[in-house]
């Protein structure tokens, strides 16, 4: 029997070893959540342009029917997670820390869960051409399900612009608490494998590395069993260290090459996909099922029964919490995603989206919020930073308001993994400073861009106004000239007639005389 590939791994710098808390939910089978009474499906669940709704209020839709189509190059369509009636298209709180209202389709399930007739799979998906695979993945609305939610089809088309040789499947799941990828690999290894092979076919790569952290031995052995007879697919055991699941660090660990600053892993010939994405690709191609649901880990010290749930997109988080027995007591913090990089959830009303891999209800003792102290320049954060940056200096510059100085220190290379904040003995929210600074820089860039554009518009308008004025002046001058000429002609004619009449008169007068 094949085992873990005996591969030389490369060490990455920094990183931390947080307590993983995975045993809370790691042994819980994936369970289907009962049908919720209402689904709220946001039109933007991906990076890029929001989808454009194709349905109206009151319309009856069937499971898998397209609700909103993708707009532009980087976008993804949205499908009906079940059959039912559209209750409306309007603003609803987003699955986002801001809690802003976003355009959302509200669907009332009819309970029959009837599939749309168009949802038919391909009998032999491996016979499809790479373009057809990417096309179908795009139509299924599949996005990166590790949390980044970048449209997967765009990544599958990278082979058109880059020379690729390796597909890395990210099964690291390095965030504490989360176990959804672990369970998926244990329970549906064949689905994951087929999805991986399809993606490899679309990308045209020869080498496939299936990277799983060593704290998931069951997932590793399940995958090893599933990939028997597929020599191109190697299962690699990764050392357990956060942030091993970061795309760039994962690639560096596996092949020893560093991704260029602010570049893509495709620059060094590697594409990384998440294992949940692979399973979704298999469902889409083999069974014709668009991305309608996902596995979410509900965990944390404040949850009564931590579980791994198979949830329809659009299910309110409240339903998940209720199914897991509710809270022991009021959670100190509700987080979407893992505790290191996850973001606070504004309320339990918000829906599950394509990128939500976990819902954590952390108790007071898990949060351990302590008072912030001044920086003692111990450089723990420098040692922990996996990107080799100076978090303490960057934060000091940001606090003093000089963002440019922090950019020179590498702010834009920060992956916001939170290792620095985790190790800081003074409990300084370092990564929060960086998130703020990145947002502020982006806002300034937008303002500058707008200013350039409005300046162009203002100049164009001034030029146009000048041209109109000039044209008017010229027209006036021309008319004046014409008038003058006409007048001259008229006066000349008058004079002529006057002269003629006077000559006419003269003979008469003479005759009278």
């Amino acid at each position, binding site marked *: 029997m094949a085992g873990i590939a005996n591969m030389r791994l490369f060490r990455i710098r920094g990183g931390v070893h947080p307590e993983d808390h995975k045993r809370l939910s790691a042994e819980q089978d994936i369970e289907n959540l009962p049908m919720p009474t209402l689904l709220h499906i946001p039109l933007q669940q991906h990076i890029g342009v929001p989808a454009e709704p194709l349905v109206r209020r009151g319309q009856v839709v069937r499971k898998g029917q397209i609700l909103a189509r993708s707009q532009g190059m980087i976008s993804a369509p949205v499908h009906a997670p079940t059959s039912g009636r559209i209750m409306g298209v309007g603003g609803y709180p987003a699955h986002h820390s*801001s809690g802003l209202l976003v355009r959302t389709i509200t669907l009332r399930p009819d309970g029959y869960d009837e599939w749309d007739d168009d949802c038919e799979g391909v009998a032999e998906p491996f016979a499809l051409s790479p373009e057809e695979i990417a096309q179908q993945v795009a139509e299924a609305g599949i996005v990166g399900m590790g949390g980044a939610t970048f449209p997967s089809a765009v990544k599958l088309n990278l082979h058109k612009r880059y020379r690729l040789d390796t597909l890395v499947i990210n099964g690291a799941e390095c965030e504490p608490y989360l176990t959804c990828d672990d369970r998926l690999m244990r329970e549906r290894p064949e689905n994951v494998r087929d999805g991986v092979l399809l993606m490899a076919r679309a990308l045209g790569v020869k080498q496939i590395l299936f990277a799983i952290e060593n704290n998931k031995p069951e997932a590793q052995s399940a995958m090893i069993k599933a990939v028997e007879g597929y020599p191109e697919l190697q299962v690699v055991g990764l050392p357990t260290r956060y942030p091993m699941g970061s795309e760039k660090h994962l690639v560096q660990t596996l092949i020893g090459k560093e991704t260029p600053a602010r570049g893509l892993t495709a620059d060094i010939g590697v594409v990384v996909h998440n294992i949940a994405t692979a399973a979704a690709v298999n469902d889409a191609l083999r069974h014709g099922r668009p991305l309608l649901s996902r596995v979410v880990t509900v965990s944390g010290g404040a949850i009564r029964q931590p579980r791994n749930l198979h949830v329809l997109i659009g299910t309110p988080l409240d339903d998940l919490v209720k199914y897991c027995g509710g809270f022991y007591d009021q959670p100190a913090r509700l987080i979407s995603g893992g505790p290191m990089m996850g973001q606070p959830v504004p309320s339990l009303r918000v829906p599950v989206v394509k990128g939500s891999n976990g819902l954590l209800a952390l108790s007071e003792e898990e949060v351990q919020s302590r008072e912030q102290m001044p920086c003692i320049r111990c450089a723990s954060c420098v040692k922990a930073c996996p990107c080799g940056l100076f978090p303490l200096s960057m934060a000091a510059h940001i*606090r003093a308001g000089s963002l440019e100085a922090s950019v020179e220190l590498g702010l834009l290379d920060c992956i916001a993994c939170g290792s620095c904040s985790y190790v800081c003995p003074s409990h300084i929210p370092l990564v929060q400073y960086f998130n703020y600074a990145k947002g*502020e820089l982006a*806002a300034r860039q937008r303002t*500058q861009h707008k200013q350039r554009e*409005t300046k162009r518009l203002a100049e164009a*308008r001034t030029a146009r106004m000048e041209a109109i004025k000039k044209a008017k002046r010229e027209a006036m001058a021309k008319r004046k000239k014409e008038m003058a000429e006409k007048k001259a002609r008229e006066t000349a004619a008058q004079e002529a007639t006057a002269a003629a009449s006077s000559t006419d008169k003269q003979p008469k007068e003479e005759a009278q005389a």
Partner: protein
Amino acid sequence: MLSAVIIISLLGIGMGILLGFAARYFAVEGNPLEAEIEEMLPGSQCGQCGFPGCGPAATAVANGEAPITLCPPGGKALAESLASKLGVSVDLSDMEDSVPRIAHIHEHLCIGCTKCFKRCPTDAILGSSKQIHAVFADACTGCEKCFDECPTECIEMRPIQPTLQTWYWPMPEKAA
């Protein structure tokens, strides 16, 4: 002694003549900094700074008569680039409060008089006679020229609402 006096006097006279010529033939019209600053300003002549246009505003900034945070459409980005241009330090905290506002037309009040879009310096209003007008949010600088012009007061200056793409975390509170 005498030779020294003569040499110094001649030098003085020579230099004076040179300087006189230089002042006449190498003279610079106006402050070159003004032109450079005007180049950086939005150029929509909106007058939100209190000056009649971007030119006079640039003059005032170059002469130190106006703060570099004067331009609301330029925002913090402009203030910072002006600060680095002029080599002065800038306190951006004053600018926090001024959320940029853009025009919004209440369609039920618009009579389609075309007055507003004739005034708009950046062509940010679309409309024609007896048709409802609309504002291109991306092109509006919030100069309020249309706001003053509208006969039915259907234009409202609204703060720009953040979206998921533009929202970001505020700066964490500093340690006590």
